[in-house]
């Protein structure tokens, strides 16, 4: 049994438009993946591909008009899709923890950071205030915050971005979660701080055998810090496998384009690729969703592409031509 299994997850935004007609944005269209304890999965893709929405669906944090319409999310074998709000709340911040991209605005401005850590700990553990405080200080120390006992009294606005992210990591790990979801954990940070935070995150995840999902735009982050990678496009996973396999031998044309558009490659490629707007989630094309933008689209692509296993064990791509060796990268 995997730590987390997401199976054919469909999350839609269903709302009435101004013309009073119901409009459905198919934001997630059958997302499936599994995560083993102790492994780190990188979830990549362009803005709007459904990375964060996948995280929110797992945590049960969707708010109207977003809704899971089909699929299963099994955490340690337990399906979370039908779980009650109380059950989910007990898991959130306890067994499943989240780190977000805006650490400074994610802390309550009117509460000292120490009290926030203590509140999260005591929301999930039956401990007295003194023990919770001790635990919070130990957590601050473990995320490399100097003079942690004094930092407990700091206000959120007194923290730098990197410091705030460390505190958020401490808060996420204080209840020893088994699953950690990091949604763009370093986007707002300085480059030097980014590396520090990621190193810290990797060390803690490895030490405690936590299963982690890292959502990012940055393929470099995936290459350095993740074991596996799943590439998302228009609400489904188009390619996944070990980082080495997917980056070394990408089989989906979208993956190849994504790799080709990383900054170090851009120099060479600039001007060759026309800018194409992201897919319209209200009217996705039949067949392969990437068809309109794919440089290698063919007749066959009007039919839904199969999920094809290629080369390396566990490496799969959702493309009719996945068994063909890639060329664009």
């Amino acid at each position, binding site marked *: 049994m995997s730590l987390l299994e997401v199976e054919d997850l469909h999350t839609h935004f269903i709302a009435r438009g101004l013309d009073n007609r119901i409009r459905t944005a198919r934001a997630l269209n059958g997302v499936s993946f599994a995560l083993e304890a102790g492994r780190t999965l990188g979830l990549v893709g362009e803005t709007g591909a459904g990375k964060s929405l996948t995280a929110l669906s797992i945590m049960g944090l969707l708010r109207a008009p977003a809704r899971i319409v089909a699929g299963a999310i099994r955490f340690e074998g337990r399906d979370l899709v039908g779980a009650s709000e109380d059950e989910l709340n007990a898991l959130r911040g306890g067994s499943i923890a989240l780190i*977000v991209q805006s650490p400074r*605005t994610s802390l309550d401005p*009117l*509460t000292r950071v120490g009290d926030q850590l203590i509140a999260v700990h005591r929301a999930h553990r039956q401990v007295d205030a003194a023990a919770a405080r001790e635990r919070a200080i130990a957590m601050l120390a473990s995320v490399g915050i100097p003079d942690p006992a004094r930092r407990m009294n700091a206000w959120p606005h007194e923290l730098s971005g990197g410091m705030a992210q460390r505190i958020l990591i401490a808060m996420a790990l204080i209840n020893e979660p088994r699953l950690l979801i990091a949604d763009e954990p370093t986007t707002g940070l300085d480059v030097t701080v980014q590396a520090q935070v990621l190193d810290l995150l990797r060390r803690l995840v490895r030490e405690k055998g936590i299963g982690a999902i890292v959502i990012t735009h940055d393929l470099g982050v995936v290459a350095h810090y993740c074991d596996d990678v799943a590439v998302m496009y228009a609400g489904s996973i188009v390619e996944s496998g070990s980082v080495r396999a997917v980056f070394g031998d990408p089989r989906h044309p979208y993956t190849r384009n994504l790799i080709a558009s990383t900054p170090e490659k851009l120099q060479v490629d600039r001007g060759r690729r026309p800018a194409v707007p992201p897919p319209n989630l209200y009217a996705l094309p039949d067949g392969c969703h990437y068809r309109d933008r794919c440089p290698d689209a063919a007749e066959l692509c009007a039919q839904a592409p199969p999920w094809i296993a290629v080369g390396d064990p566990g490496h799969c791509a959702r493309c009719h031509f996945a068994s063909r060796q890639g060329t664009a990268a």
Partner: protein
Amino acid sequence: MAILRFLLRRLVLVVPLLLAVVFFTFMLVRIGGQDPVARIAGPTATQGEIETIRSELGLDKPLFAQFAIYLGLVARGDLGRSWISNRPVLSDIVERVPVTLELMLWGVGIGALVGIPVGLFAASRPNRMFDQLSRGISLLGFSIPTYWLGLVMLFVFFYLLDWAPPGMGRVSLMLTPPPRVTGSYLIDGLIAADWEVVHSAAAQLVLPVLCVAIISAAPIIKQTRAIALEVSASDYVRYARAAGLPRRQVQQMVLRNSRTPVITYVGTELTGLVGSTSLIEYVFAWGGLGQYGLNAIIAGDFVAIQGYVLFLAMFSVIVFVVVDLAVMILEPRAALQG
């Protein structure tokens, strides 16, 4: 210490602000195009009489010379004398301040006491029935003209139902007002232990206070709801949910973070209403500052208008200082910036 420094800095800012208010009011009433002298002199006055009055009032001097004289008076704490009643404007205003404050504080107080919880509750369940209802009621409160509300209240509760006394001032005409201590008949009546006066003053207060409460509650509901919704959608509240904090703790977080913007809004509301309740005072013959200002404007009594506007500005300044102090106490960020 931080509070003292804050007050000092605020005081320094207030002086040029009030100067500007004095200047613009002075100029605006004079470029309005009406000649107050002809009106004061009356229809039968000869040209000679008009000119005499004009020079008595100093209106024959150049505009800036007039302003210099007026400013000199104001600097010495004298707001001049009314052209109509020849009474000193300052003492007229001081006498009426508690009268209006009594109406305002009760009205806005009740408006806030009702409006804030309604807004918060509506925001906690957006788009549900209570929310829709409160939005409808709030819209209604926005749309009702102030004076019309007062007239309808009198028509229904005095004329038709006879539950309330007529809108003829602050205490029954049969009674002697209590000796002046605070200027509020209700409080002064209590101090004098004159129960008949207390009863009558309270009865007279009901309808006008209800009017002010209704017109202030509408925007307070709307703003409180908007503020609480914004806080609910903030990163930290969403993160608190993601951290699995109990629902009650999340709600408390929303409440605490809504506090300062709501207080600030009620302060703004209070300063805005002091001017706009003139018509309510008029309908109920309240005899407060609003009615005084309205009469001054109708009569073209420039000196009284200037005094009235200057007082409104000072009232706003005081309210905002109080609001800022409250925010300083509640907000760690504001306290640090001093």
